[in-house]
């Protein structure tokens, strides 16, 4: 599956996700410049992590106004896949492709550590290799990762099954009030969501940073491989082991 990694001034995980997509998963990848007006026939658009435009004003706010975002929106409306990671999540919220807001972490400090995530949806193009209730370990590295929205909208989000991942304990217990297990204070411990149609998904943790054995953790590869294999009717699914 051809992935386009959007590069904004200040993106800094663009090379990381490109590396995993191309060299670990063996898929086609290209960079897309924020001023581009073509997605170069990419089936997947990745909004990478970083500090687009320095996160000045608000995280993701300026990037959401970039020329390429019109194309990304068109792609999403047509059912194309969009994956946002960290700053990419913030940009997707700011541009309205996903609901809610990512606010300053509850402890008001940048947090770089491993977290545990419980899988709520395993029927999405992004998660079909995972199973519901499974616990993943992934690193987070962000200052603005506290997911918030109005209570009634959160109810709707949950009712629609748009919550994909929640922060949890290593044993898989979701405790929204635990600073240890929900470190940025996200409401209802939400770590990753998707849109109503399930073709746009974003998460704060970094799957691209835990997709190789040499780094001591491959939990992220399952998520990224799900996307790669969701393309042309799981053309590669048969050949790849878990």
């Amino acid at each position, binding site marked *: 599956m051809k992935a386009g990694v959007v590069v904004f001034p*200040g993106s800094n995980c663009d090379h990381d996700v490109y590396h995993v997509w191309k060299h670990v998963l063996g898929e086609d990848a290209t960079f897309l410049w924020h001023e581009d007006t073509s997605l170069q026939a990419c089936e997947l658009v990745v909004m990478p992590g970083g500090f687009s435009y*320095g996160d000045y004003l608000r995280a993701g706010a300026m990037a959401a106004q970039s020329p390429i975002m019109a194309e990304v929106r068109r792609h999403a409306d047509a059912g194309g896949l969009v994956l946002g990671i960290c700053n990419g999540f913030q940009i997707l919220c700011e541009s309205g492709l996903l609901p809610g807001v990512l606010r300053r972490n509850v402890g008001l400090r940048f947090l*770089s550590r491993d977290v545990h995530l419980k899988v709520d949806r395993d029927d999405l193009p992004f998660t079909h290799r995972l199973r519901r209730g499974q616990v993943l370990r992934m690193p987070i590295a962000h200052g603005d990762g506290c997911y918030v929205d109005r209570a009634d909208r959160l109810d709707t989000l949950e009712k629609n099954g748009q919550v994909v991942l929640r922060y949890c304990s290593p044993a898989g217990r979701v405790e929204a009030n635990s600073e240890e297990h929900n470190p940025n204070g996200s409401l209802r411990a939400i770590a990753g969501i998707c849109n109503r149609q399930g073709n746009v998904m974003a998460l704060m943790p970094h799957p691209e940073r835990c997709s190789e054995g040499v*780094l*001591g953790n491959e939990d992220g590869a399952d998520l990224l491989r799900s996307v790669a294999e969701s393309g042309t009717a799981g053309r590669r699914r048969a050949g790849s082991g878990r």
Partner: protein
Amino acid sequence: MTEVLLDEPQVDVALAKRQGMTAEEYEHLVMVLGRTPTYTELGVASALWSEHCSYKSSKVYLRELPSEGPYVLQGPGENAGVVDVGNGWVVVFKMESHNHPSYIEPYQGAATGVGGILRDVFTMGARPVAVMDSLFFGSLDAPTDGRPSRMRHLVDGVVRGVGDYANCVGIPNVGGETRFHSCYDGNILVNAFALGIARRDAIHKAKAAGPGNPILYVGSRTGRDGIHGATMASEAFGEQSAHKLPTVQVGDPFAEKVLLEATLQALRSGAVVAVQDMGAAGLTSSSFEMASRGGTGMELELSRVPLREPGLGPFEIMLSESQERMLFVARRGKEEELSRIFQRWGLEVAEIGRVTGTGRAEVRFRGARVADLPIAALTDEAPVYRRPVREPRDLVQRQWQPQVPEPGDIGAALRSLLGTPELGSKEWITRQYDSTVRTNTILGPGGDAAVLRLKGSPLGLALTSDVNPVYCFLDPFQGAMQAVAEAMRNLACVGAEPVGLTDCLNFGNPENPEISWEFREAVHGIARACRALDIPVISGNVSLYNETAGQSIHPTPTIGMVGVIPDLVQVPVSWFTEAGDRVILLGDDQRELGGSAYLRLLHGIEQGRPPVVDLDAEARLAELLRYLAFERQLHTAHDVSEGGLAVTLAEACFGRGLGVELELPLEPVQLFSETQARAVIAVPPRQVKAVLETAAELKVPARDVGKVGGGRLQLKLSGAKVAVEVEELRRVWATALPRALGM
């Protein structure tokens, strides 16, 4: 020559003194020029001849440091040093201090320290892949007159500053160290290290060549921030230092990230002759240093420099230390191509002059000549001092061997040590730093050394930064040797062989003969260790005048060392990983408590001779550790350092919460002895025989002392026993720093 009306002060010796020059230096300048300097010339000369830029008090000693080796492509003298690590790759690294600004304004001071060191690395054509920070703070319980402690504010500001900057640029912070000691109450130290990688043929040097080539100014606009920062960093602090706020620069990590990408792209284009960051002394040092290296001259028209606010005069433009600015020498005819690259990244570009063959810097402002200076006389031929040295009067008292109290309850003593911010976990700090971006981090902060993979090769890169200022205070020669030896030992614990080091030499006022003596001894110590261990010094930085109201810091020669792991398959970790593993002690204890954490932190005694450094023993131990790591016989390797064997063992238990049961032929107090050239390793039982045999071959004392397992740290000593729950110790250790900070 057109006349421009500039409201500038009268230049005389009194003004020169106010700008930090001595009367002799001013006279020398007048003699070199054959006339009275202009106001701008005086500013330029005082910046270039400041301690910070000229190394005038340290140069005579720095020459002793070995800087060559078969793999060294660039030693000191460039923006950063370069070493070949094989497979077509080179590493570029340097460490630099940002002490004075960080004390005045901790957030911006520390942030711009990171920014400056990153620019030093990427101007060489290397992509930065890691940073480390070595931080030295005063005691957290210093008297505060009922106000919130200033030191806590400094810790918080510095950590946020380091974190926000590197996090935003996207460079993982993978290590360093943090220390607390009352000698830093009036002068904290912020030493920032950066490591970059490049293909061997991509390295660029900052040598302005080719008369006629245009000079481009790229990046942020010039403002009034940081004017004369280099001079400020060359003075001791007094009562008035709070007024120095405008001399601190303000950082913009987003501008840095964009500048980083644009610079690397520009260097790849072939359109660049030379580039240098406008760091300390801004446009002055970048232009003079590039011309000096190239043996050329420069013409500059300052009215073309993009300004942040109107009204800056030539003096201010030449000396501003506004951040995220670069000076490029372009290949003539290629300036358009270069400008397009910068503009694509949204960066401002201005052509502000050209290279000449005159050997002079001719600086104009709106057409009028404001400076005309001979470059060599102000750079290579700058004043050099061999300052008087004198052994400290109290050296005998410092080194007097103190009475060593018995620990009594060993478990309680260990708990107390682990509960100090000095020896407690630094996770409160490192959690605020992104350590995994760029997906190379195999081992991040918290171990003996950080380990990165080098994508596209089987190699691993290991890095560490070390110094024990208390040892250096008691004996700067031994202390400096110890810093080099410990850095090598830390690298060996992850199986890495050193390829080079960078030093950041932080000392007090060199005009005090006792401080100059400390400096000389420390440099001797580094030189001795580097020669014996065959490690070149490829870059470095000197920070003097770390003194407030006559109170100097301890000598603090921070050593940043980089090593290579030939085959990144199984890297030993600093914690126990498998119950049942056998624990082997490498090296023998010599009962050395002088300058130990045990005496200082538990008994308030900072006295005695620090542990003796046996470089031969260090070399053999390091070779053994590297061999065992390469043969994949090690699960765990952790060096014995501050706090002695007791702290080493406790730390090794914390990683997985695994205990140990050991029988040690030591008396209780020896658990806290800090004898060097020692490490604790853990190996699967089937490897014990082979490991002991290899150790014997390499003449490293080795002893199988017990096994990993259970949840307790259980030690059977000569005439005493200890048994403590690991979890209980871990909790004390993990909460020590936030507790001390009141977080």
